[in-house]
């Protein structure tokens, strides 16, 4: 029997303007929040492994570290198909950086001893792309990122990674931590019945003490990354608008424009 842990995160809704709070140096995460859309691909990947029988999955567990409001993200994860969820929440976690979050998640994962950990490629707010790798490091397990295809053969996973230069095919033996690219699948719609039933699925809420996590390694106390300042990206010059009055002429103009810049 196989257990899959999926790492999830609550993030500000895509429509919310994101900015750094200069007094704390942290992202301002106020406003409407939702489940990190990239994580839905990890949940979908777990469910597909379970439903296809590729792995003999008996449980998919969603795990998050976050404030009390993050329960909503866990409800969403179980409404998508996770069997239960774990929420690590503690005031001492506030201000954790990627390394601290990775450590805390790894400790939670150890309690569950799953065979596979899946994560989204990035969070929609912090966008470090690195939590999965930090978790793998703390667990001492193989870690892969940007995986867009997963083939299972016993305890071996053949993964296709999307890299800047093309595709890597990598074999790993379970247990492993894999963050999936958003090209891996199309996440399903949560069933409305599952949404209504989400609050009834088991949700374990833990403090640092409950999970025996070292408070000095997380939050402000364990923080290694320090925000020093930010600036607006340089303004871009406005583009050139070509009115399409005569299509042949428009095409000529576009070709000339590209040609000028040695793009074709």
């Amino acid at each position: 029997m196989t257990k899959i842990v999926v790492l999830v995160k609550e993030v500000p809704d895509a429509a919310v303007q994101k900015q750094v709070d200069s007094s704390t140096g942290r992202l301002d995460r106020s406003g409407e929040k939702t489940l990190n859309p990239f994580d839905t691909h990890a949940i979908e990947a777990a469910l597909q492994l379970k439903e296809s029988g590729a792995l003999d999955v008996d449980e998919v567990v969603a795990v998050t570290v976050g404030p009390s409001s993050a329960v909503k993200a866990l409800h969403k994860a179980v409404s998508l198909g996770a069997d239960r969820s774990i929420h690590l929440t503690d005031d001492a976690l506030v201000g954790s950086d990627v390394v601290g979050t990775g450590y805390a998640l790894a400790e939670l994962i150890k309690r569950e001893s799953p065979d596979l950990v899946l994560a989204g490629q990035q969070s929609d707010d912090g966008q470090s792309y690195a939590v999965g790798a930090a978790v793998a490091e703390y667990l001492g397990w193989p870690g892969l990122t940007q995986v867009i295809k997963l083939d299972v053969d016993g305890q071996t996973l053949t993964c296709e990674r999307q890299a800047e230069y093309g595709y890597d095919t990598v074999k790993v033996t379970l247990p492993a931590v894999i963050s999936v690219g958003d090209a891996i699948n199309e996440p399903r719609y949560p069933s409305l019945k599952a949404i209504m039933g989400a609050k009834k699925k088991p949700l374990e809420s833990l403090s640092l003490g409950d999970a025996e996590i070292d408070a000095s390694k997380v939050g402000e106390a364990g923080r290694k990354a320090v925000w020093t300042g930010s600036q607006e990206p340089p303004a871009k010059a406005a583009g050139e608008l070509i009115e399409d009055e005569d299509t042949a002429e428009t095409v000529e103009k576009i070709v000339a424009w590209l040609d000028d810049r040695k793009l074709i």
Partner: protein
Amino acid sequence: MSHDPTLNPGDVLGLDADLRDDEREVRDTTRRLVREKLLPNVAEWFEQATVPVELMREFGALGLLGLHLDGYGCAGASPTAYGLVCQELEAGDTGLRSLVSVQGSLAMFPIHRFGSDEQKDEWLPRMATGEAIGCFGLTEPDSGSDPGSMRTTARRDGTDWILHGQKMWITNGSIADVAVVWARTDDGIRGFVVPTDTKGFSTQDIHGKLSLRASITSELLLDDVRLPETAMLPGARGLGGPLTVLGEARLGICFGVAGAARACLEAAVDYARTREQFGKPIGAFQLTQGKLAEMVSRVAAAQLLALRLGRMKEAGTLTPDHVSLGKYSNVSSALEVARTARTILGGNGITLEYPVMRHAANLETVLTYEGTHEVHALVLGKALTGISAFT
């Protein structure tokens, strides 16, 4: 002077804040379904006067069918959650909302409320998944607002029932696996669960509709349809049965038409801000702004009314008078909004490229189905004065 808009036509009054998390999730999921899977195709379905039957399986898998019922594979959602689903579906098209509300409220609900355990076990789980489609037969060619005048009869033959008659304007009639048919018996009006493959049962689709085109409307012909004793709904006696069922469906209409109106307002605002005439957006003209102000008032009131009715239903304080008020007020508002939106969109407004004429045409049906505007006026008049003016 031009600024960013400060009112969101999608939720003018910030009613989102009054919804529970699960209600919001249900709403958002349905909205996504409509945007991704239905809106890209609905104009074509409307033009071809059809709706794909396969949608029922998809809706079933998602849990839309019988959403507000308990057990039998249904989600047991709140009436408000069910209403919000109707609102989102009808923001797509009234035909899509009708597909779901006929299944859930008109066919599944009477079996759930009035049926025997055997009837429930046989039909509800399959109807919840969309494997079996249901329809509701009350209206007849000569019996509309006055259902008490129905001519369809059910007579005893030994322990069997023999149904004979004709039902008209039946949504999903020809694609149904089961029809909930109301008929006159020696014991008053009773409901029957009729498998549509029973000998003597046939249907004929109604063609040439200029409204509700993305929906199948049929006539049911019952030519001495022989049914076992167990086909009768044991819990419904008299006209109260079908009227209760219609009350259930009308709550979905109150929400649904608010969705259609919202879609029209959004289309009109978008168009008014981008369409230029006389060197400026038509939204910069006072006449257009006057129209938008009228529309947004109607939309906000309709949304507020629908939500209030949903909450009253949950609290157990909703009466048929309230539902009549909701249908009377919201349908006429939505129709007015759709027609006004059409004028803002000018010639574009009459095409299927834009949703407004489609909604306006659909709402003409909603104005008279499930209780005509006039009948609901009489209900309200009676409720206020204590004097019945029906006859």
